[in-house]
């Protein structure tokens, strides 16, 4: 008997993803769809029958598994490959306004909220049109929360929610700082100093962003630890220091600035 294992010819195998790009509730079984999501996001125990192979406890070794379900897994944090502009939302819950925040970001971008520079939408869209693929470790967040002795128990869902809130907060703070760095904010900066080369967002810029923005009031204390740009250079350049001590920004300090920056670049 000839044993000739061949990969099955899949050229005619063209499974259709359930058509979710129209974001209509047309999926055959919403619950099945959810299984994917749940598996991706929370590492559920089951690989999830994608509806093609029925209940699956493990991956088959003989028949070609419907491997397209790996595409769905791109939604795992840190693994993603779908771009910001993707409208074909491999989402499982077409009904839901959003699944992970990331998907919501994609949907909103698809609706053309911010990418064209529509200033108005910035006020209503907390993601500012940004889609994040990375997210924070939930356990770490819970630990930070419970570092405060006053904090007692925390519901299971809560760190997830805080994580997402934190992402939104970061988006806001980062973009406000970036605006300061570019120098074309609504703030007192006025003219667009916009750099010719890649500019760095400095602690100074973040400090200004914090002071300028009311919602960042709780950060004022932290911001005040950042010395102002008028601080004397003094030539004491600490290599890779973790403190927020502001080294002199002035361009003429190129030599020391280079040294300082050597640890900065990513």
């Amino acid at each position: 008997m000839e044993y000739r294992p061949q990969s099955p010819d899949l050229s005619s195998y063209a499974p259709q993803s359930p058509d979710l790009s129209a974001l209509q509730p047309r999926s055959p079984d919403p619950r099945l769809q959810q299984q994917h999501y749940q598996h991706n996001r929370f590492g559920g125990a089951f690989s999830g029958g994608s509806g093609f192979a029925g209940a699956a406890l493990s991956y088959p070794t003989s028949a070609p598994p419907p491997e397209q379900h790996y595409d769905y897994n791109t939604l795992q944090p840190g693994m993603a490959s779908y771009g910001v502009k993707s409208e074909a939302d491999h989402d499982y819950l077409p009904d839901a306004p959003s699944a992970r925040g990331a998907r919501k970001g994609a949907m909103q971008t698809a609706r053309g909220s911010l990418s064209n520079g529509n200033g108005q939408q910035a006020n209503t869209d907390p993601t500012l049109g940004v889609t994040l693929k990375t997210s924070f470790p939930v356990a770490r967040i819970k630990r930070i929360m419970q570092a405060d002795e006053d904090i007692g128990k925390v519901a299971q869902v809560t760190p997830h929610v805080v994580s997402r809130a934190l992402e939104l907060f970061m988006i806001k703070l980062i973009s406000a700082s970036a605006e300061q760095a570019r120098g074309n904010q609504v703030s007192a900066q006025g003219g667009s100093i916009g750099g010719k080369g890649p500019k760095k967002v400095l602690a100074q810029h973040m400090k200004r962003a914090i002071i300028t923005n009311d919602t960042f009031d709780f950060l004022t204390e932290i911001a005040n630890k950042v010395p102002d740009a008028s601080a004397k250079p003094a030539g004491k350049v600490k290599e890779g220091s973790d403190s927020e001590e502001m080294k002199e920004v002035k361009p003429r300090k190129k030599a020391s600035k280079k040294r300082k920056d050597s640890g900065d670049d990513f």
Partner: protein
Amino acid sequence: MSDKDFGGNDDLSLPKATVQKIINEVLASPAIQGEHGPTLSFAKETRDLLIECCVEFITMLSSEANEIAEKEAKKTIACEHITKALEELGFGDYVPELVAVADQFKSSQVTRERKQTKIEQSGMTNEELIRAQEELFRSAGEKYNSVASPGEA
């Protein structure tokens, strides 16, 4: 990384790499980047400052939510307490998004439980389950193979 650290240290901070990734994603995003030319980058000190702000945010939010929970005589901080706290702190525009996140989580929890029970309730032993599974795959495989070229192992 240090998440597995059992040293009981109170140096709780966020993973730098994760923070850096988020920074990059935000700065590179079309909504932020716009037509402003080359992508900005964060100085190291700025990133560290950002991390500090984030931890402060979490702490403040938790503290506020904790108070709200206590007022309701609840010992566990629930999602509703967080959302109320956010409104108090001026981040009310985050709430719709977060409510959606919470719903996602809850429904995934239910589904996970239901799946667990389904396995137990099927009344079959592991062997039987495995055999049933193989049968399913075989029949599924036949469908593919009948479409594809015949004659494989």
